[in-house]
């Protein structure tokens, strides 16, 4: 999918998870909300933080760091929920803090070496460098289950 020669413009929302820089294609981001208390779901996997009220609909929220297998940490007031839409599913992703919106071209992105993907194969779809910092570009379809995928 990532053709290194093409130079299509890409806008990424960058954010921090456990002192690492990650990013998502801005096109799938619907909004960014401050942290609110979630209503926990019984017996849910630990990355499932629960559900919140997003203007009248029930939005599931997952802790992205835990989802990616990063160590758990305390929530602070700087934590935000990035509301993303993948296919027809809306999901809230809890991240430590949002950093920036960066504009690149697809030529700036490079495929990750296999070992670099922390959350298992496919979660990191590309890497890029910004001011000598490595930014991981996440593949949303690998994070947010689609309606077809198994319900636990």
């Amino acid at each position, binding site marked *: 999918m990532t053709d290194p020669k093409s130079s299509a413009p890409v806008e990424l929302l960058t954010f921090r998870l456990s002192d690492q820089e990650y990013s998502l294609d801005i096109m799938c981001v619907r909004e960014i909300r401050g942290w609110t208390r979630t*209503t926990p*779901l*019984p017996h849910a996997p630990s990355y499932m933080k629960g*559900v919140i009220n997003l203007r009248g609909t029930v939005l599931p929220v997952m802790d992205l760091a835990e989802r990616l297998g990063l160590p758990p940490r305390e929530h602070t007031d700087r934590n935000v929920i990035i509301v993303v839409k993948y296919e027809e599913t809306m999901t809230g992703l809890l991240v430590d803090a949002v950093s920036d919106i960066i504009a690149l071209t697809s030529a700036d992105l490079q495929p990750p070496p296999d070992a670099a993907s922390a959350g298992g194969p496919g979660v990191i779809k590309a890497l890029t460098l910004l001011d000598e910092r490595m930014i991981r570009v996440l593949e949303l379809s690998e994070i947010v289950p*689609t309606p077809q995928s198994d*319900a636990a």
Partner: protein
Amino acid sequence: MSAPDPMAEIRASFFIECEELLEALQDGLEAMADDSGDLETINVVFRAVHSIKGGAGAFGLEGLVRFAHRYETVLDAVRSNTLVADGDAIKLFFRAADHLSDLVRESRDDGILPEAEGNAILTELDALLGDHGVAEEDEAEIEFQPLGLSLDLGLADLPAPAPARFTIHFAPEPELYETGNEPYMILRALAELGSCEVTCLTDKVPQLTEFAPEASYLKWTVVLTADVQEAEIVSIFEFVDGLCALTIAPIPSDVPAPQDVSNDPLPELPEMPDLPDLTPPPAPAAEPEPAQPPAPAAKAKATPQSAAKSVVRVDLDRIERLVNLVGELVINQAMLSQSLESSGLSPHSDAMNGLEEFQRLTRDIQDSVMMIRAQPVKSLFQRMSRIVRECSAAVRKDVRLVTEGDTTEVDKTVIERLSDPLTHMIRNAVDHGLEPTQNRLAAGKPEQGVVKLTAAHRSGRVIIEVSDDGGGINREKVKQIATDKGLIAADASLTDTEIDNLLFLPGFSTASEVSDLSGRGVGMDVVRNAIQALGGRITITSTPGEGTTFSISLPLTLAVLDGMVVQVAGETMVLPLNLVIETLTIDHSNLEQTRPGLNVVRVRGEFVSLFDLGVELGYRSAQDSYLDAVVLLIADEGGSRAALIVDEIQDQRQVVIKGLDESFYRAPGIAAATILGDGQIALILDPSDIIAQAQGSTLAIAPNLMELTS
């Protein structure tokens, strides 16, 4: 939005009409079957099929037209008393109606028409008519060619043949005028074909004294020069054929035209407007008796529309949106109430009085909106009558379906989702509920078994019952099967109700040999799950030798729920109020430990297993002591009961149900969610699921969840 295609809209509307017509057909046939119909009944039945044929023809649905036409032919014979519809014929009519309904559905979805089945039914239908019918059939079929309707109104220009000339003699009879035909129009139509020389023969017109206003005195001779075939001229006279003396004769081409008309395309046309003056006057102007204007005027005031019930068709999406918005309104109202109440305003202040009024209005709006989605269960019941017919034929039992309360209204979504579980229950009733014919006769029962399907509103819920007059549940056998399958201990002592409820266990099937009807891997457990998913309960009652009744109790709508709001481990949760039997507090007198890890609470002499909801949900670990804990005694659909420990009961109120996206993660014990007055989400519990998770199966083995210290 793209511009709506009018043909597509009419097509959609045609299929909606078909549903109504099929319903009327079904009703009519049922009336014929139990002899409760009258003379009009067969007409209604005939018209239903006839109208489906008519519409289908307009859309070029040939398969549908062909079947409807031959079905209609047989019904017409019944209507005209040349065929007597006996019981077998009516059964066949039912099958034909079922097939017609399949054809309608397949035609609508552009599916494949089940031809073989249709042909078999048609053969039987034709057989009813004997030789006569078949002969008539062939003729009629040629005559009725379905025509795909195109709305391209431009008439194709035919290639012009060489101009021909015709002499037309036309002498109207009085009947021509009586049927509303008009020579002027005919002459004008001729003039449109080409150039006309019209001569009006007035020699028959009498003196005024002898003039009869209704008689026909005028004749016309027309010489037409036009690029047309004779058939085209004949077609102009189609409606008056037989109502006039008419000759059309081509003039041989070697006879010269009287003048060169082609230079002057329509020389006769200016004369045409004079013609009406010459026609006899059947017109109102020559009316002998005076009209009575006041009467029609008064009649016109009673508007024509008043007779027809006014109906608006609305896209379901719009209703969904309205339902959602009303849900928001309810939540917002609750939030407003909460903040006003905590603001310390006097209950007698204007704001609080206004709030009360607002609450009442909100409730009314909510009820009204829910009513929009309500539909009578009739269509559902009619589908079931088909299931009974097909199913009884398959197991060779004579079964009659009796329905009651089919005008009972239920939320559309509920109706749709009831179809599968009801189908299964009806099949069960026919297949397992009713005994084989020889057993019925031996028991002194009529050969024909009865399956009864009823619907009624009872205290804010809908009760749907499926009952049979069969042999009742064979409890010995049920218990044996449950024991064999390891579902219960061999020495378990169970009440009749408990045995009956074993039917709802996953994988249970009473049929010792799996028949092709019920043995489809769907058990009553699936039925129960489906009913529970609708917020309903299902119960069984059975009397040996007299039959079995399954009773389903459903909420009127899926959108709201009467709930009990409780606190559990710091979380606010909602329990469906209909499942809560009573609340109690634990003390030394009612708490017992039957064995280590299994605590029970004694309620009026009965022992009920006790669970800590917070522990069951994984929200906390077991408490040290449950003395003085608040307990909700709940009963699930199967009648099995449980006692749930909660921290606090907060409120009883109606909550708006919000679905949980379960593609992500399906939380056990949770049915849905709602939004509370403070904007927080509260989960709605599914107590049966909790009990099932905790118990494993029916046996009351609770996990080791508490230690009692006291």
